[in-house]
């Protein structure tokens, strides 16, 4: 099986920023139980590079989420293509370019993923440090199980 035919797993985030390390923690667990199921990439989030990486691929993306309305550790699954939830980006500094902007860019430049499912885990502590909050740590296994379940369900499409 070539890499191109495998679904792509993208971990965003910074393992030295406490709860922002959730993507990398989930990726490590995934690799330990099913390293051949995905092509794994830890990415810095640069949208101009993301669009080349995910173009026409089946993508699973895990990142931390910061939102006051979400309890720490809650996993939110977003399918931006299925929900047609691409919204125009607001003017901002380049430091704040996000997955949303990357998707908008990809759409304009014809570099969209074939499918993309985003697993966003709510965090509460993004201070420097390598320890995730307890609820975020506890979200690693459920997140992996959900990803694998979805992977099995859609496996034939990805083959």
């Amino acid at each position, binding site marked *: 099986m070539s890499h191109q035919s495998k679904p792509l797993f993208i971990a965003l985030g910074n393992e030295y920023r406490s709860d922002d390390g959730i993507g990398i923690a989930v990726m490590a667990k995934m690799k330990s139980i099913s390293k051949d199921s995905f092509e794994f990439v830890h990415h810095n989030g*640069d949208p*101009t590079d993301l669009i080349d990486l995910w173009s026409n691929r089946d993508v699973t993306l895990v990142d931390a989420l910061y939102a006051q309305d979400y309890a720490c550790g809650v996993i939110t699954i977003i399918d931006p293509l299925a929900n047609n939830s691409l919204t125009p980006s607001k*003017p901002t500094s*380049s430091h704040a370019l996000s997955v949303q*902007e990357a998707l*908008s860019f990809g759409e304009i430049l014809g570099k969209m993923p074939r499918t993309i499912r985003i697993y966003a885990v709510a965090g509460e502590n993004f201070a420097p440090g390598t320890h995730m909050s307890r609820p975020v740590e506890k979200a690693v296994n459920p997140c992996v199980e959900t990803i694998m379940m979805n992977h099995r369900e859609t496996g034939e499409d990805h083959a």
Partner: protein
Amino acid sequence: MTRKIIKVGYLARVEGEGSLLIRTEGNKVEEVQLKIFEPPRFFEGFLPGRSYDEAPDITARICGICPVAYQMSTVHAIEDAFGTIIPEHIKQLRRLLYCGEWIESHMLHILLLHAPDFLGLPDAMSVAKAHRTQVEAGLRIKKVGNKLISTLGGREVHPINVKTGGFYSLPAVARFKALEDELKWAKDATHKLLEWVSGFDFPDLAIDYEFVSLKNSNEYPFNEGSIHSNKGLSIEVRDYEKHFQEQHVEHSTALHSIRVGHGSYLTGPMARFSKHFDLLSNDTQQAASEFNVDVACVNPYRSIQIRTLEVMYAIDEALRIIKIYDDRLAPSVEVAPRAGTGYAATEAPRGTLYHKFEMNNDGTIKTVKIVPPTSQNQKRIEDDLRRVITDNIDLAEDKLTHLCEQTIRNYDPCISCATHFLKMTLHRR
């Protein structure tokens, strides 16, 4: 008498967060405040006590766009303190790493942050919709810069292969050779982009700047040289603080720099281009001539052309260094820590970046001083704004606000470095 207040609450398309407040009364500009409200980041506070070999990886974290600049100024300052002699092949590789950073940083600004101003478009997405060919080419050029950095630096953002004395390891020749075709493509594509940006409508403005940059007699400045200006300044880097002073202003968490006895000055692409045009590659000089970019350009809106020319130069320089690259040479030289003070300035994409490191005998850091280019340019930006507002006082508020934002973006300010930045308020009375 008409009083006006212009407020931009959050300035878009700059690196970091800040705001702008302008008060006018009649035809007089009473107050211009480029407000930088992000908190100080204390790098100079937490470096003391750390070992010299940790420093380049820590200062790189000051910026995600120009980490190489911080690493380069840091290692050169520490090597100056230790009396380390760096061989020519490592100097060349440091230039190569810097080429990668100039390419990626300049392309990001040209394409996604600055071009929308000239095209009357609100953001990068709109530029991508309306000018897809140019945006695709620009992103591909940017990627070549990223690739240079990751090949030599170990990764694109915050490289991990830079150390005091050189590099931890050197990549195989074949890895650089594999980039040659893409670099050659990028050079042609940059020429086309230069043609595109040269067709923009540039507002009229001519300012009698004091241009400040490094000067090294035989190369366009990156890492080495003394500090010169077009108004008679010629000093060694170690004398920087005798001639330049940082001042605290109430509305900014970034300090303002002035040249003592002279006032504001400009550092960055326009200063380098004006002072060192003859050290650019022949093709870059020819392209400047082809698109009428004046060597003595003092219109800051044309900085977008000069950045594009610097991308072309960085590509030429990268190709030159790759051609002579030899992976059999030592990746670094021994470093012998000793007590002392070291000074360095290098040319970040946005301008001159000054570092001073005072070191203890055991190789730990005693004190650090860092003066980023945006803090050096910040007073100059406010002075430009005063002039632009005075010249355009009768413009409708939305047009004047846009012109002010565009004026700030001429500088590609990195507020995250300076410490971060924009919101604009105009009070007309």
